[in-house]
């Protein structure tokens, strides 16, 4: 009962924050709302008994993405200072957004949802996750590929950022 109330509160909080991200005029406030949204989602993960997902959510999204957006807008100071820019292409944009939303809604509805939890949540599930990531029969290949992808991104960013 208690957990469900907390769940609902944070679900509403995350949704409100998500709406605020796109409606607030200042980019600095948008970043703050984005963080709040990520935080709300992390709490939801926590309530769903997956602390690891919650930690990763906070680490990557709040700690990584939100800080990155913040740094980017400090570097590009003009963008941060500027008041709300007049949106000129609102009709095409809304059509694109609406079709994307419909596509995602359709995919979500079509996806067969499991009735019961896929697996019990055993103690030491973190160790199981770690083992699965480096197991050749498990997710070793995707794991290594992601590593290579990130390395390529890093080298690419260095190349682009190099002073010429």
């Amino acid at each position, binding site marked *: 009962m*208690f*957990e469900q109330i907390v769940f609902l509160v944070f679900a509403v909080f995350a949704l409100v924050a998500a709406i605020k991200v796109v409606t607030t005029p*200042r980019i*600095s*406030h948008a970043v*703050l709302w984005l*963080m709040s949204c990520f935080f709300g989602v992390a709490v939801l993960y926590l309530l769903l008994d997956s*602390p*690891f997902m919650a*930690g*990763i959510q*906070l*680490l990557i999204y*709040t*700690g*990584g993405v*939100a*800080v990155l957006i*913040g*740094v980017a*807008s*400090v*570097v590009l*100071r003009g963008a*941060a*200072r500027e008041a709300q820019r007049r949106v000129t292409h609102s009709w095409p944009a809304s059509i694109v957004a609406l079709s994307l939303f419909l596509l995602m809604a359709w995919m979500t509805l079509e996806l067969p949802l499991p009735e019961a939890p896929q697996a019990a949540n055993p103690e*030491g*599930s*973190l*160790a199981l996750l770690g083992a699965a990531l480096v197991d050749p029969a498990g997710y070793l290949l995707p794991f290594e590929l992601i590593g290579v992808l990130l390395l390529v991104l890093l080298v690419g960013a260095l190349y682009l950022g190099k*002073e010429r």
Partner: protein
Amino acid sequence: MIWSELLLRALGALGMAILPLVATPFLVSGSRKVVGRIQNHRRPGGLQIVTGPPARLRTLAAVIKQLSQGLIIPHGADRAGFVAAPILAVALALATWAVIPLGPEGLQVADLEIGVLYVVTVSLLAPLAVLLAGWSSRTGNAEDGAFRAISHLISHKVPLILALLVPVMLSGSLSLQEIVLAQQIPYILPVPLAALLFLLAAEAEVGRLPLGGAEASGAIATGTLDEYSGTMLSAFNLAEYVNSFTVSVLFSVFFLGGWRGPWLAEAPFLGTVWLLLKAFVVFNLLVFIRAALPRLRRDQLLAFNWTYVVPLGMLVLVTVALVDKLIVTLGVTSVGWWGAGLLAANLVIGLGMVAVLVWVERAGKVHRAAPGMTLRDGPRPEER
């Protein structure tokens, strides 16, 4: 969940959050005393002009004064962000304490399975408070300062996380309690280099003097906190001190065996005493370092970090992994030999590093400015 248990947990969390807050004024006055001794000024004015209650009570008076100062929000600042930044800074400083194990059983707000991840996440969010502060001030100095502070903070995150991975690897767990339990010998003995890296990176992170280039009120026009005054400035200072104490506690947990110590079987509460004692020693070490060494320039710090500290961290991580695996494969079961093997590997790397530093220094390559640094970061040495 039962309400009484919930209440108990809430009280525990509150107590845990209050502990560092109460400790901070004493740590401030204590560290000032130590620095005063080192720098040879023992009391204000140098004369016996202080009358009234013992000087120690001045700390209390200072706390009351700081708390009773007003909130001044500069005209033109982004109000929400400006007020949120100090709150965020203090909240993040206290958040780490939720996972610190104070004793063997139950003396911990939450024994998270992902404890180390939590610590790293909380410390990764710290730049956000800085960013918010600089950003919402909307003045040039503060924004410049925020950018400076963030490049500084993020750069030192890398060796910090690399160093933290070593105890995680040795103990095979991300839970802080498990890491303490796994330390039959304190990890500083087998892996002193990782401990050194952690201390170095953490010192830079919390912005204490020799490595704290992010905020330098004396050297560069303050920085992020340019527009802050009164209680909100005190909040930032409080967060800084709490952070400084927190890294001391974390160092004790990861490398000094946490609450481990003698006579624990008879009196479990001694664990807390041991932990705080260890943390206090580490804190004092940080104060000594701060009092004894001059500040490094920011570009020197970043260049040193990226050219030496980060590669060293990677090297230590890989070496410890290999040597640990090798020792286990050889079938060594005694903790002593395992520690000796790791220590030998660490010493070899450490001496190699010293040799590299000496060679670089002889070759005269040290005083170069970091690549990519511009005049905005201060004149390069050869241009002075």
